[in-house]
């Protein structure tokens, strides 16, 4: 009895289009939809794209960047960076965290070493970029007074030696500053005293010279 055989032949190939880069998925007031083609593609980062402002209120662009290779394979990054703008197109950044664990140590010569920690540095999407320090003989107002010292934030830990300061009682304030939107965190405060420097040490006369 004749039998009809239905089978097949199969194969597959890869295509390398050479378009290594970054696929950028954007969700407007919603999470990005990874089943759709990416909104933007760029061979390199950083990359800029237009974000239309809302007619009123705020609009949030939720952005996810995935690495793509020439075969179209993408990383599976799920992290989202929210970018919120107002109706004027001005970026509305989330609040920064505050510094913590302020320690002030008086050192020789009227110098002061200031130590502090910025826990949010590696966690926040828009971290502060500057330590700001006020030192004065009267309590400084960080919202009004210009800082006495400023230092770039390159890590989440501050260890800065400042001075020299004349002998006196001092008030110190420490805050974080974000240059992009001129935002400043709440300040930590401390007080310290620079002591009067003791007289120089002089040699003790030898015994034979004691009258």
């Amino acid at each position, binding site marked *: 009895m004749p039998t*009809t055989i239905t089978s097949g032949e*199969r194969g597959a190939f890869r295509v390398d289009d050479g378009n290594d880069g970054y696929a950028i998925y954007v969700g407007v007031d919603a999470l990005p939809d990874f089943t*759709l083609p990416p909104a933007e593609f760029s061979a390199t980062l950083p990359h800029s794209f237009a974000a239309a402002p809302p007619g009123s209120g705020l609009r949030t662009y939720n952005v996810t960047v995935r690495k793509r290779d020439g075969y179209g394979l993408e990383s599976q990054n799920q992290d989202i960076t929210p970018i919120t703008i107002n109706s004027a197109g001005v970026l509305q950044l989330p609040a920064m965290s505050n510094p913590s664990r302020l320690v002030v140590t008086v050192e020789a010569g009227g110098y002061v070493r200031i130590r502090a920690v910025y826990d949010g540095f590696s966690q926040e999407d828009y971290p502060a970029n500057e330590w700001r320090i006020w030192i004065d003989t009267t309590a400084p107002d960080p919202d009004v007074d210009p800082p006495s010292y400023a230092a770039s934030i390159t890590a989440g830990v501050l260890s800065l030696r400042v001075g020299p300061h004349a002998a006196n009682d001092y008030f110190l304030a420490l805050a974080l500053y974000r240059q992009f939107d001129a935002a400043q965190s709440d300040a930590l405060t401390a007080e310290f005293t620079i002591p009067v420097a003791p007289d120089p040490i002089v040699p003790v006369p030898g015994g034979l010279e004691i009258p």
Partner: protein
Amino acid sequence: MPSQFTRGDSLREFLTGAASDGATQNDFALSLGGFRSSRQAASLGITLDNAIAGVRVDFASGGNPEGQGDILAVGDTLAWKIAGEFGSAVTFSGTQTNILEGDTPGKFLRVTGTPPFSQGRGNVTLSPLVHGLLGFAEVSPAIATSGGNKYRASIVKNVSAVTVTAFKRWITPLAASVVGDVTALGASGAGTLETTGTFAAWPTSGWCQVRQSGGALRECVYYDERTVTELNVIARGAFGTTPGAGALTDILYPVPGVVLGLDTAGVTAPGAIATIPNETTAPAGVTWVLGINSAGAVAHATITAGQQFGVWYWQNIPAGCKGTPLARVSFTTEFTVP
């Protein structure tokens, strides 16, 4: 007891480019016509887990789906199933090479077995075979950017002792068809094909046949992106088709980037078919077939025992081809054995 060279194993497809009929030639890229190689063109990759002692899987037919199946050893018998029920158990006596059919005769393994077997189930995973005969070589960035064509040839031989009839082969669509009932293509140029249906199961980029509602081929196009309801078409007139305005009743089929045609020599005794000097030279006189069912297939009515015929394959890469880790190629083959 289906032994090898019977049933679905009656026709075997081999590489070409050998120095003489059946000589050694294992390079897919040199399968450019001429004499049949001794190497059979595999369709699927085979991975064994929990393998059964005394069993070697030599070949998996392209009629099997990708995925995991089971060989069941009971006594001196073996049976095969994948995406269905077990087929008939086959008894082995001494070292034999037989075929194990699944629930249809086209879903088979060619297995060499030497009982006694370890008893129970062994897992066989069948996976896409990348860059085999039908997969051509990896498409480079230069070709993906500017486009290109490649050609290869195989020889299908009736290795059985009987006459095979009604051979047909056609392109297997890669997913279900969709009616492009929202937006059709214009007379030429890039455009979109949009549907109220869904492209969700389609490849994220690839080739699409646009057929009229009656089934006539209108055009083959290439899309580089898709959403669930829309294809972004960047290349028209693939595989020598002629761009033309579509209609909202057109039916869209996702198809491979490879088509086929029969060698002009037809069915012959073993011997050389036409040759091409390199992969980028088209064979002369071949009629390329884009059929997606038996009515549009290449066909040979009769292949007697020992006879052969040549099959040519054409890979057409459009300019702007999108990178992909797996562009599938699939054909359906049908024939009758007594």
